[in-house]
């Protein structure tokens, strides 16, 4: 289903909208004015939305019937009767966000404002696609059992460790896009849509984490921010004019593909400075006796991870400090180029490698400050993210909320009261063979999970 398709089909020949379409448009507008905090009383809706009193009263009555706003609270009186506050019912339904990393999975439950209410993270090996999809389903089930009233589930938003080349005109996904080798045949989107009877979105974790940092982390209120994630892959996200930059096809910030040179070797930034290089050089140091700390870790556990190298560096192991400083210098060189080009207010470093030690941050800072124009670095802050993978969950939830209430998509479901009754979605479910749903029938609510469960 494409954005704009329905709106175009509903236009009349003379270019003027039919009255029902105008009513839907004002209904959508009123809801978004309230939801985004642009108007909080009837008077503000009349002023900001430029609607008459009768229109506002009618639209609010409809939205109250749909359970999307209420007027139960009163504001502060300014010389007369205290005004009734119009509030968005963010608890009308829930959103689930999921973050997949190379070695971890996280799930979170959010309200319709995108605020995280609960989250859980655990280690996972995502090379087994089937087991990963099953685990995501089990964790979502667990999250829903923790809800006393089992509210409707309006969407699942997934953050994945790779660029997602999806059609920018798509309101929700019906098929798993290609984000890592062979994952397009994993059935991730199809399984979640079928199992939870709800809308699914997928975005890259650089995009979701940038969004999360902007809404809940160091980037709150900033107009420009560069977000750099350092893990097995190294990627960047950009905030410009207070909004995430998406590029032409969503493939923004693939800086891990840039060639860099260290001593006599040239390779991509991913290969020369990412987690795999850190692990490999740590293994060399352990076996050559260069790092007694890693030698001990290897002897006890039989293997080493990049995180072991980071923690050893943090404890003062000389060889590990040098490995991370090398990584930091290479990343810092690329980030300095971006900083000189974009002049951000803030650079945030995130990812498991950046967050388990201070050496990488120090090395990147030193390189960026040394290689940048003084005007660029005068007020520039370079910080380590405090959000870890919560940034991805929060960002994914924010993206889901924006997608649900995007005016074009909202017009297609608001009259039905819930996005899961959107005709295109209902038909998609039927096409998936997930149920005996027929177009026009009321789809079943999300699975109600008993308090005693398996």
């Amino acid at each position: 289903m494409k954005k704009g398709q329905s709106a175009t089909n509903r236009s009349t020949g003379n270019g003027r909208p039919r009255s029902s379409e105008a009513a839907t448009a004002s209904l959508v507008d009123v809801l978004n004015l309230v939801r985004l905090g642009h108007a909080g009383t009837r008077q503000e809706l009349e002023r900001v939305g430029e609607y008459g009193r009768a229109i506002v009263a009618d639209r609010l009555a409809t939205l109250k019937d749909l359970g999307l706003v209420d007027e139960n609270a009163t504001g502060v009186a300014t010389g007369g009767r205290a005004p009734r506050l119009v509030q968005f019912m963010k608890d009308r339904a829930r959103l689930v966000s999921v973050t997949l990393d190379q070695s971890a999975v996280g799930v979170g439950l959010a309200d319709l404002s995108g605020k995280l209410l609960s989250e859980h993270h655990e280690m996972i090996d995502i090379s087994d696609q089937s087991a990963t999809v099953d685990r995501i389903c089990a964790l979502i089930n667990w999250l829903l059992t923790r809800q006393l009233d089992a509210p409707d589930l309006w969407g699942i938003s997934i953050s994945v460790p790779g660029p997602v080349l999806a059609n920018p005109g798509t309101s929700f996904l019906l098929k798993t896009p290609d984000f890592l080798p062979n994952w397009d045949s994993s059935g991730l989107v199809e399984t979640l849509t079928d199992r939870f009877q709800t809308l699914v979105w997928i975005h890259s974790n650089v995009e979701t984490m940038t969004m999360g940092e902007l809404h809940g982390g160091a980037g709150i209120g900033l107009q420009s921010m560069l977000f750099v994630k350092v893990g097995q892959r190294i990627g960047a996200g950009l905030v410009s004019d207070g909004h995430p930059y998406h590029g032409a096809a969503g493939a923004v910030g693939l800086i891990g593909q840039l060639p860099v040179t260290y001593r006599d070797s040239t390779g991509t930034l991913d290969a020369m400075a990412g987690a795999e290089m850190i692990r490999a050089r740590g293994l060399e140091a352990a076996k050559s006796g260069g790092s007694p700390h890693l030698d001990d870790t290897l002897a006890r556990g039989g293997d080493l991870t990049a995180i072991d190298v980071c923690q050893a560096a943090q404890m003062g192991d000389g060889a590990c400090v040098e490995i991370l400083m090398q990584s930091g210098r290479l990343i810092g060189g690329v980030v300095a180029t971006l900083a000189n080009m974009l002049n951000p207010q803030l650079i945030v470093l995130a990812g498991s490698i950046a967050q388990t030690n201070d050496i990488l941050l120090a090395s990147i800072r030193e390189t960026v400050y040394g290689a940048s124009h003084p005007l660029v670095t005068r007020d520039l802050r370079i910080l380590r993210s405090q959000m870890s993978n919560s940034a991805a969950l929060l960002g994914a939830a924010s993206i889901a909320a924006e997608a649900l209430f995007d005016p074009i998509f909202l017009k297609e479901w608001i009259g039905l009261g819930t996005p899961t009754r959107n005709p295109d979605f209902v038909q998609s479910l039927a096409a998936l063979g997930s149920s005996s749903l027929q177009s026009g029938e009321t789809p079943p609510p999300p699975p109600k999970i008993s308090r005693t469960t398996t």
Partner: protein
Amino acid sequence: MTIIGLGPHGERASPPERVTLLPQDIAAARAKGLRIALVMHTLESDWSRHLVQGVVGMMGECGAIVIDVVDCNFSPEAQIAALRRLCDEKPDAIVSLPVDNTTVAQDHIAVSNAGIKLVLIDNVPTGMLPGKDYAALVSVDNYGLGKIAAELLSDHLPANASTGLLGYDADFFAVNEREIAFSQSMERNRPDVTVRTARFSSLDDAGEQTRRMLADYPDVAGLFVVWDTPCIDVIRMVSELKLTLPITTVDLGQEVTENLAKGGAVVGIAGQRPFQQGEAIAKTTITALLGRPCPDWVALPGLAVTRSNVIECYQSVWRKHAPREILVGLDVLRPG
């Protein structure tokens, strides 16, 4: 043992060695004349008492005065009142175990906003971030504890059985992790076993939830209770129903440890090290107060305790010799 769980934001664990205090650190802390307050969810468990001992003892070595130890009795209202009162006392740091994930969040954030270092134990209210809203979280590897409990119970379950999981009906990081890990471990290692979950809303409710579960699912052949205090009521209920079910739980509390030693219903315990955790909490707090980089999440591994190692684990956790009842229960001493 390695840490297998992740932190509340997906952080990798840092070992307690990351907050080791050198003699010069202790001297610097002593010179500051620090004042610390401790806000606990309860002081009515053996785990809490040992943890407080660890914190207070290590604070003493650093010359820090513990000005108050508050028992919130699992009440968010009591915790909010305590935090507000303590903020007025202007201590250098508050160490707190948040009793839930939502209602107490703002008052914990207010502690940090007042310029008081906040170190959390076992739970982080959703939305609070390390470095910004609190200095660090110190906990055991709760995910690891759930896995240990599942493995200890698994040996006692017949093929194709059901097992009961008695969880806590509050959104709380530590018990959530235990619950999820127990279920996942059973699913992976005993796919023939079905896990039945029920949750108690208060300690008094644990026995009743057990009775209901066993009535609904008579095929339940074993139980896991997410910590030892409610487990005591669960053991009592199972006994009243004249059933013989193997039980595992978390924490080496006196009663469940005696039950394990005597060959009772408790067949295994996933043990925490509250005294060592208390020391790690104190060291983390001092590290933060000295302005040194502090890990986001300091985690300690758990212990797998069975009848065969219960005495040594008891000594390690309780820092004293095992009582006569436990030694008699294991035939190390003769009764009488």
